[in-house]
């Protein structure tokens, strides 16, 4: 509660939003606010200005292209993804989003906010990496596309530079995906998670074990456990899990996610 003083701006277009962000290095984009506002309550971060992206229709919406590619606007809420007929083209998206937090948060929280905050316990960073999503970033110099595995740079840090915005995420066609997590209570915060996608070989992205999702590949689901061991991860310890326990969970969950992916 009780935020620090902050300016508020509600741009009418992505262009205006980019200008606001570029002209003030203390400005931060406000998406659904389901993470940022809480961090501001703790005064652990206090932007000088919030640029509210709510209502920018250019950033909303879910489109399914002929080749099966899904394009999801950054400001699309989890609830919209869960309810979307188009999104069923890649079923894992709706399935995972339906387990993020709770109804209220899903009604406000956005896919863009989830990946841009890149809290290591978030669901979507590993999922985006596993399914090979491509992120479109807009800036003064126009747009650029970054593959998900290069998008996440650190805790709360992504390829979206100051003065830039994530505008949409493209997810290629595919169905053989899996997601597994051990959470704090039923469908709660992830203690450790893993997303997998099978497309010939197996792509697995581990969450909660490092500042960014850890991408692994294996020829078969059976090979995933070895791949995790080979990766020599050294996850952080916290009150919910020691590094040792997380290392173990990563192996188990990666295997489960891969098996789920292979069997659909």
């Amino acid at each position, binding site marked *: 509660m009780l935020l620090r003083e902050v300016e508020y701006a509600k741009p009418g277009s992505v262009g205006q939003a980019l200008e606001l962000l570029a002209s003030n290095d203390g400005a931060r984009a406000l998406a659904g606010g389901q993470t940022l506002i809480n961090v501001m309550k703790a005064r*652990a971060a206090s932007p000088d200005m919030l640029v509210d992206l709510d209502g920018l229709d250019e950033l909303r919406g879910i489109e399914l292209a002929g080749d099966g590619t899904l394009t999801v606007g950054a400001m699309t809420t989890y609830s919209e993804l869960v309810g979307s007929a188009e999104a069923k083209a890649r079923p894992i998206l709706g399935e995972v989003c339906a387990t993020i937090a709770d109804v209220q948060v899903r009604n406000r929280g956005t896919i863009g906010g989830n990946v841009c905050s890149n809290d290591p316990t978030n669901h979507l960073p590993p999922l985006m990496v596993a399914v090979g999503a491509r992120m479109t970033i807009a800036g003064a110099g126009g747009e650029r596309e970054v593959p998900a595995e290069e998008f996440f740079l650190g805790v709360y840090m992504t390829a979206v530079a100051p003065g830039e915005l994530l505008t949409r995420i493209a997810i290629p066609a595919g169905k053989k995906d899996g997601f597994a997590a051990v959470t704090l209570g039923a469908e709660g915060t992830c203690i450790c998670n893993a997303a997998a996608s099978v497309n010939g070989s197996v792509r697995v992205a581990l969450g909660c074990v490092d500042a960014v999702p850890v991408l692994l590949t294996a020829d078969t689901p059976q090979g995933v456990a070895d791949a995790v061991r080979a990766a020599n991860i050294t996850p*952080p310890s916290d009150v919910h899990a020691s590094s040792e326990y997380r290392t173990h969970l990563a192996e188990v969950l990666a295997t489960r996610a891969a098996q789920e992916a292979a069997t659909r």
Partner: protein
Amino acid sequence: MNVSGERTFDAPRGTVWQVLNDPEAMARTMPGVESFDVHDDRHWTANVKIPLGLGGLKMKIDMEKVEEREPEFAKLAVKGNGVGAIMNMETSFTLSDTDHGSTAMAWSAEVKILGPVGSMGQRVLQPIVNQQVQHVLTALDQQVQEAQGSTSG
């Protein structure tokens, strides 16, 4: 929490030592430095805004060189004060020559973060600290290269 590591610099020990003990050079290695004051050769103060995606964390950082054995060992006591966060760090490094002319630095730091940020962010502190450390080391490498260039050229 304790973080430590080894790093090799492609420069003679003297150069590395000089960079590590030049406040101005050190300032350029620290993340988000907004101002930097040298009080004397043992005491420096920096105002930094550590860049975190959700907004920078402002801190006033006081550094004291508490121990020094030129040209191989130094220990710094670092106290950071920010709203909602207090950082106490003791860090030291040991330099040694490698057989092929470069310099090896063994470093370690004991970092403590107190206050709401320490409690709220405990899940992510370790990765964040690692991030910042990497930032410092890379910047340090640059400083050493520059110093190397200026001395050799």
